[in-house]
């Protein structure tokens, strides 16, 4: 299992798409940091709000990386080769999931730390660090961790869809259809079901304060547990399909 996991980690971190997205994120940080430096006097106390704003990007990047990690492998046909080396399919998919999710969580945190570092520099040089204390640090760290967890959630669900459909584009399409069509239909025609929508739970999980989403009765922990359950069920389904379906 260790060798398999090491091989999957190596493969994940060698992907071109990953580094393209990382470079784009770094350019975004540099651009955003530049704007903050020259045009506004950035107040470091608003860092948690910045993390909230970038959490959607973190989640989408997680979704794309998770889906393409397994989707590209089906596309290239390398799953067949791997399964002639390790025939225990549960181990194969477990190694892939662990490699993808752990890497995406780590990557999301590093990107946010870099963003935070850039903005802290701006604030120290031209802006303001007033009000920065222990409580601010805990809040900032909490938002960053929850945003990374959301990115990991996106990765898990994207991975699961791509594993079942054996296709990256299909998984991205399903995600788009869900958020654009299904959720809006539910909001329009079945408002009582809103508490079960991923977007609402993700917002509650991220915002933490119940006053931000007064119509949602669920707590932050409850939203986190709900999203975790959704991700685990999706991964479990993907694992069952991966373990039983013919590889032709």
């Amino acid at each position, binding site marked *: 299992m260790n*060798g398999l996991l090491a091989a999957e980690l190596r493969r994940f971190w060698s992907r071109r798409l990953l580094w393209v997205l990382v470079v784009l994120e770094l350019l975004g940080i540099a651009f955003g940091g530049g704007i903050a430096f020259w045009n506004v006097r950035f107040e470091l106390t608003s860092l948690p709000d910045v993390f909230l704003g970038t959490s959607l990007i973190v989640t989408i990047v997680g979704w794309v990386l998770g889906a393409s990690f397994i989707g590209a492998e089906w596309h*290239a046909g390398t799953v067949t080769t791997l399964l*002639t*080396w*390790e025939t225990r399919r549960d181990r194969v998919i477990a190694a892939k999931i662990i490699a993808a999710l752990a890497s995406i969580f780590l990557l999301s945190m590093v990107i946010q730390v870099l963003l935070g570092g850039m903005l802290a520099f701006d604030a120290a040089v031209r802006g303001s660090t007033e009000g920065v204390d222990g409580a601010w640090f805990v809040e900032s760290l909490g938002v960053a961790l929850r945003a990374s967890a959301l990115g990991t959630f996106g990765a898990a669900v994207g991975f699961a869809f791509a594993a079942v459909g054996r296709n990256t584009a299909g998984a991205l399409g399903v995600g788009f259809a869900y958020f654009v069509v299904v959720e809006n239909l539910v909001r329009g025609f079945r408002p009582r079901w809103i508490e079960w929508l991923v977007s609402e739970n993700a917002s509650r999980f991220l915002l933490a304060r119940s006053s931000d989403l007064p119509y949602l009765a669920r707590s932050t922990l409850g939203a986190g547990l709900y999203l975790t359950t959704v991700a685990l069920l999706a991964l479990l389904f993907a694992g069952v399909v991966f373990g*039983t379906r013919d*590889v032709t």
Partner: protein
Amino acid sequence: MDVIEVAGLRKEYPRLRGGRTVALDGLDLSVPEGGVFGFLGPNGAGKTTTIRCLLGLVRASGGRGRLLGADVPGGLPAVVGRVGSIVETPAAYPRFSGRTNLALLAKVAGVGRSRVREVLEQVGLAERADDLVRTYSFGMKQRLGIATALLKDPELLLLDEPAIGLDPAGIVEVRELIRRLGAEGRTVFVSSHILTEVQQVADRVAILSRGRAVASGPVGEVLSGGRAAELVVRLNDVSAGLRALAEAGIDARALDDRLLVALPPDKSSLVTRTLAERGLYLSELRVEEADLETVFLELTEGDQR
């Protein structure tokens, strides 16, 4: 000991518009240890499905298979480390080098890096080993597939069309490699549609048609197919030759400008003497040998899709 045992193996695929496609229809097969075993059949006969079933990639609908004594697929984890394989076109990560692709698989199975170097040299890829696989030609990818199959230093190799896409020199190299691997005491199970290639390297063959084995055994036995050997005799006066042989009690028949004589090769002197005694001198005498292609086409007649 048989390294591959297949009994009544059946595989059906559901069709999109209902009904089922039968890929394997109660296949029985035994492959003894050591040497090269040719697995032949027209497209769609079930060769690749058989290999996929043996490797646990597809689940059989019925029957059973055993690989190195282990039941498939349940017992595969215990023996897969002793099995190397190529299934159809070998797939590799296109944005990794050939060496990295092999190193990743080596890591999965705990194979040392020195073995990666060895197999790259063995298949003639050492010089391009650090180039990205996406820059490889089809033939080079095929060589990388063979290197992948050899990486575990396996006792049993399952090679699905290993020479496909290779240039003539590459085909000869692969043929020599297969022959050498078989001579080393490994079992090489090779499926191919290039019958002359298989005939040159295989000790035993099985011919598959519509998901069943229609012939199996040593190459010579399958080639003869139960038919008596014949001698081909060419001479100027075929009818005189036919009369002469008939008078000597030798069974023969005319075919165009030749005579086909129903005698085994070791009785050819009887033909030359009989004809010479009557002043008939032959211009050619040879043994009529069926080639694998002829036997294959006869056995799979109506199955060419």
